[in-house]
């Protein structure tokens, strides 16, 4: 089989999928414009956090080095990476028409891992909060909850979207419109894992190093 040229970023469906290709190209390009503007929003929250990461902005309160739990961050990182990979397998099973059962199975695995991530993140927030790391304590903690919370909200929105797509696949089957939505959800889900790389490196590991 010769390698067909990629027509748009992300996993490309083969031409026998009866998806209107120019339209798919356009909607996916539009989705990239959204993701990149979302990335700029994340970048501004990162900039805010970095400028708050100095002794003055901690206002004599605790910092990340005292309140972060490295093990829990490692578990969350593992959950999100495995979830991203599971979604990749869901996309591949959809592309090669392995039957909607496989796609739904991998998406369910991906969703469960994403929910595992959220559980550990909320547990972390509760523990940091209980030890005095509340948003009103200092600029540092305000910026922390804004940045990490914004990512958590994105993951929660992605989880809802994934539940909706699992339902649509189950009800409508691999219809062209449904497949195009699953491709975009895949890009969004991988994108959230990329943002998490920035968070675990710049927020957690930098504080604990």
């Amino acid at each position: 089989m010769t390698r067909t040229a990629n027509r748009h970023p992300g996993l490309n469906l083969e031409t026998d999928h009866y998806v209107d290709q120019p339209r798919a190209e356009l909607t996916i390009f539009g989705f990239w414009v959204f993701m990149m503007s979302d990335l700029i929003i994340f970048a501004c929250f990162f900039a805010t956090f970095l400028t708050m990461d100095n002794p003055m902005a901690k206002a004599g309160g605790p910092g990340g080095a005292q309140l972060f739990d490295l093990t829990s961050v490692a578990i969350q990182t593992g959950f999100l990476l495995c979830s991203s990979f599971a979604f990749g397998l869901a996309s591949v099973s959809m592309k090669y028409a392995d039957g909607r059962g496989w796609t739904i199975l991998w998406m369910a695995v991906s969703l469960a891992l994403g929910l595992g991530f959220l559980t550990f993140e909320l547990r972390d927030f509760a523990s940091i909060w209980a030890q005095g790391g509340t948003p009103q304590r200092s600029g540092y903690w305000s910026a922390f909850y804004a940045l990490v919370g914004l990512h958590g909200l994105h993951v929660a929105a992605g989880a809802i979207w994934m539940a909706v797509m699992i339902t649509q696949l189950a009800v409508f089957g691999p219809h062209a419109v449904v497949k195009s939505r699953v491709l975009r959800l895949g890009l969004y889900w991988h994108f959230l894992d990329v943002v998490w790389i920035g968070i675990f490196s710049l927020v957690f590991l930098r504080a604990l190093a």
Partner: protein
Amino acid sequence: MNGKTRDILTYTLGFALAAVLTAIAFGAVLADLPRATSVPVVGLAAIAQVIVQFRLFMHIDLSRQKREDLHLILFTCLIIAIMVGGSVWILYDQATRMM
């Protein structure tokens, strides 16, 4: 090798590389290296992992078909560099002057 095997291998390679780079970053912190070593290691592992995930999970490459998308991503990087770099530079300078 058919297309399906190739696609699965792409994702598996991306997953393996991302896992190794994550382990390097966490390992540098766990090993209690001096901050001057561990922070650059974490930073470089992060940049490498972002590139790995963009290339192998999101299938961004330098081919002509996707030039527009690559331009979009590079322009976003420019905006981020100006805004984040500028804010951090100016405010760190202010902070050191106020110490």
